[in-house]
């Protein structure tokens, strides 16, 4: 079974600064997807960024980018030019690419990192 670990329960950053959230995962699979989801106080789960394991290039979405280290099983999220609206709980998640006993249907989540943005 896959596991996802977020070792930082809380992080804070000054507005306009850069912050990196850490995520490690454990899997025996070679092909999978990794995600970062944002959960603001409204509790809506919002997809921030997605990475395919077979792609070596790190995904980027505007101010959000990832550092995907497949051998180290590490998937960190970098937020540049932090904004007050970035304050939220951030979840790292894993999904198998191929079906093995229904495993590719589910997302496996970490416990989350609460990001505070200070003005």
């Amino acid at each position: 079974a896959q596991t996802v670990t977020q070792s930082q329960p809380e992080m804070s950053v000054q507005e306009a600064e850069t912050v990196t959230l850490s995520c490690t995962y454990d899997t025996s699979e070679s092909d999978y997807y990794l995600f970062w989801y944002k959960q603001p106080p409204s509790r809506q789960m919002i997809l921030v960024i997605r990475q395919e394991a077979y792609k070596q290039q790190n995904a980027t979405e505007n101010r959000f980018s990832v550092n995907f280290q497949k051998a180290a099983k590490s998937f960190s999220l970098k937020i540049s030019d932090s904004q007050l609206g970035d304050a939220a709980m951030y979840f790292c998640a894993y999904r198998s690419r191929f079906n093995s006993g229904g495993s590719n249907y589910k997302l496996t989540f970490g416990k989350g990192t609460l990001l505070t943005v200070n003005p």
Partner: protein
Amino acid sequence: NAGVTQTPKFRILKIGQSMTLQCTQDMNHNYMYWYRQDPGMGLKLIYYSVGAGITDKGEVPNGYNVSRSTTEDFPLRLELAAPSQTSVYFCASTKDRGGTDTQYFGPGTRLTVL
């Protein structure tokens, strides 16, 4: 296009009561999921469905039941509510498992069992 909608947003139940959490998506997605989120934790999969008439258990199915009679709707049933079921429940959907693999989430239902 409303995406994934859930009702109710909040509910308080007494121990032993039953209720149904509603989930509807208007994106013609084949795959639908129910997750629960306990305080300070990530989401855990309760049940999922790969199409109308087909459902299967996830990680934490005990105490819940589901049905999928249409592509759009995927209700979650709690038959005998217990305090351990106090949680926030999220419904999600995807077009298929080999597509974008992005799960679209509903706004959640906060359930308290007293």
